């Protein structure tokens, strides 16, 4: 098992390298000139050229790439064109709210959606199942921002139970921190939950029709043991896969959610940096998001091997 994990870890390196190369060139070839934006609307051609030289944008692209990759290998993501702060520091400042939002969403969604899916499959075609799946379709069809405004209107504006927007860092107290996360997590998590619940149900239904479930029932095992051990462990691989795929969904959802709830996280940083063509920041952010995604995939791949002993790569 250890050898397998180490091998998988090494396999992520080329992936990250490809992502880095791709990100760098994608941004260079996108339209728009950061030097012109920085120099301002009325700037002369010379002023723009000067800014371009200062930023190193006048050098050949390959040379720029070489400099950038060497810095990257040392953990240096460069300096923001606008704020003149190191990109790593900008990202570090914004990391906590985003991490808190995605992890709480992930945790709540999985903790609710998997049991819901299991019950739906167990009570397939009964009332509980139809209700759950009805809500799942609704949840899946609802755009994040629409749900977010509905939630804000009722829970924050009408009933004044939760803050309208903003983020309270955890060091300012646990409850304010949790309160500030509830509405964004629900808004962000509903689509994700619907997805996981549906896959859990489908996967469980397939497994419950298998011969070994009949065997488990013929042994007179308790229902919870049949459902949660014999069936769910077999149904787990597709569920875990979709949880992983859903992380990408969460990351794109984070951008919208943070904007609606005015949370100073990586999503907001991304939107701002893209609008301003702040190359180093955009590059750094894409690398961080890609790294997160690769890491999630790694965890999922490793979990397969724990769930099903037949799986080895």
């Amino acid at each position, binding site marked *: 098992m250890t050898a397998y994990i180490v091998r998988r870890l090494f396999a992520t390196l080329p992936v990250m390298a490809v992502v880095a190369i791709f990100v760098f060139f994608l941004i260079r070839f996108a339209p728009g000139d950061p030097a012109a934006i920085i120099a301002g609307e009325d700037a002369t051609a010379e002023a723009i050229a000067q800014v371009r030289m200062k930023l190193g944008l006048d050098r050949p692209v390959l040379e720029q790439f070489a400099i950038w990759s060497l810095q990257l290998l040392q953990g240096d993501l460069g300096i923001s064109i606008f704020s003149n702060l190191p990109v790593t520091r900008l990202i570090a400042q914004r990391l906590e709210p985003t991490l808190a939002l995605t992890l709480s969403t992930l945790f709540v969604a999985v903790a609710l959606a998997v049991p819901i899916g299991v019950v739906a499959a167990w009570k397939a075609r009964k009332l509980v199942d139809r209700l759950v799946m009805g809500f799942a379709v609704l949840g899946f069809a609802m755009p994040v921002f629409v749900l977010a405004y509905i939630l804000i209107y009722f829970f924050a504006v009408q009933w004044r139970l939760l803050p309208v927007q903003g983020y309270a860092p955890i060091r300012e107290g646990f409850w304010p921190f949790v309160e500030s996360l509830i509405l964004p997590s629900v808004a962000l998590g509903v689509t994700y939950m619907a997805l996981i619940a549906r896959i859990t149900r489908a996967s469980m239904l397939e497994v419950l029709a298998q011969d070994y479930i*009949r065997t488990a029932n013929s042994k007179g095992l308790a229902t919870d043991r049949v459902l949660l051990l014999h069936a769910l*462990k*077999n149904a787990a691989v597709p569920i875990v896969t979709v949880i992983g795929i859903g992380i990408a969904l969460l990351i794109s959802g984070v951008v919208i959610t943070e904007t609606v709830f005015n949370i100073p996280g990586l999503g907001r940083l991304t939107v701002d940096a893209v609008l301003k063509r702040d190359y180093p920041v955009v590059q750094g952010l894409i690398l961080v998001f890609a790294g997160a995604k690769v890491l999630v995939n790694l965890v999922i791949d490793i979990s397969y091997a724990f769930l099903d*002993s*037949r799986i080895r790569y």
Partner: protein
Amino acid sequence: MSGTPGPILEVRDLHTQFSTLDGIVRAVDGVSFDVARGETLGIVGESGCGKSVTAMSILRLIPRETGRIASGSIRFEGEELTTLTEEEMKRLRGHRISMIFQEPMTSLNPVLTVGTQIAENVVRHLGVSWKQGRERAFEMLDLVRIADARRRLDEYPHQLSGGMRQRVMIAMALSCDPQVLIADEPTTALDVTIQAQILDLMIELKEKTGTAIVLITHDLGVVAETTERVVVMYAGRKVEQASVETLFDEPLHPYTRGLMRAIPRLDVEADAAGTRPRLQEIPGLVPILTQPIIGCAFAPRCGFATDRCRRERPPLIDAGAGHLVACWEVDRVRRAA
């Protein structure tokens, strides 16, 4: 074995039905039989004759969404099973009545170790610790003659051959010393050499433990080798019942005769040209069970059938010494032997 005298299992006039889009399927249509303590009873018939459904009915494992036991009685040790609660049934399954299935390749859970799957049965029903459960699992694997049993406990089903998996199923089914073991086509999916080993093992363990076996099969060869009494089923009904010697000496139902003529035999002399008589199939198809069957279910395929056969359902009659047969024309059949 303690308990009351008399049969350990009594099935009376069992009707099991399934609702389908085409109507109600009468999969088991009034079947009765007894299983004596420590006996091996064979239930024989073609695919779709209701023999597996009979087995599943005894354990009440008929899927509730589509099927149900419509009427009849199933008594185990004198206790009526059809009216027990699901929780009471669960205490019985795998403990006092257990079951093994046709497909050893798919009947074991692929993601749980063999040891866990045997031990959980023991822990569930005998209330022992997991450690003791594992020890029992080891004893059972050893009993079904799996070599290196200690190591096998921690293996997964995909690491075992088909024959070994069926041994594991047997070990699991017998781990709580059940009074009745229902074996639904236990050897059908196995190689012929392995089939013999598994059957021998089942019979040997039966002698050792006194567990009664209900052996469900379409294979008359298996029946001849292993069982003491035989029930022949056709279209959800019992058509003949006899001791295994009587049945093979003088089968009385035309259907049973048809089945026997379909067995390949080596002791039949070849003729001058060197050809042996062709195996005879039974003409026609098994009836569709969504329509209530009037008269004898076998009549459309039967060479002896008369108008009465097509009109009136033949009752089971005793043709002597407990040899039961449901046929109006039994005297003609006997003379035609």
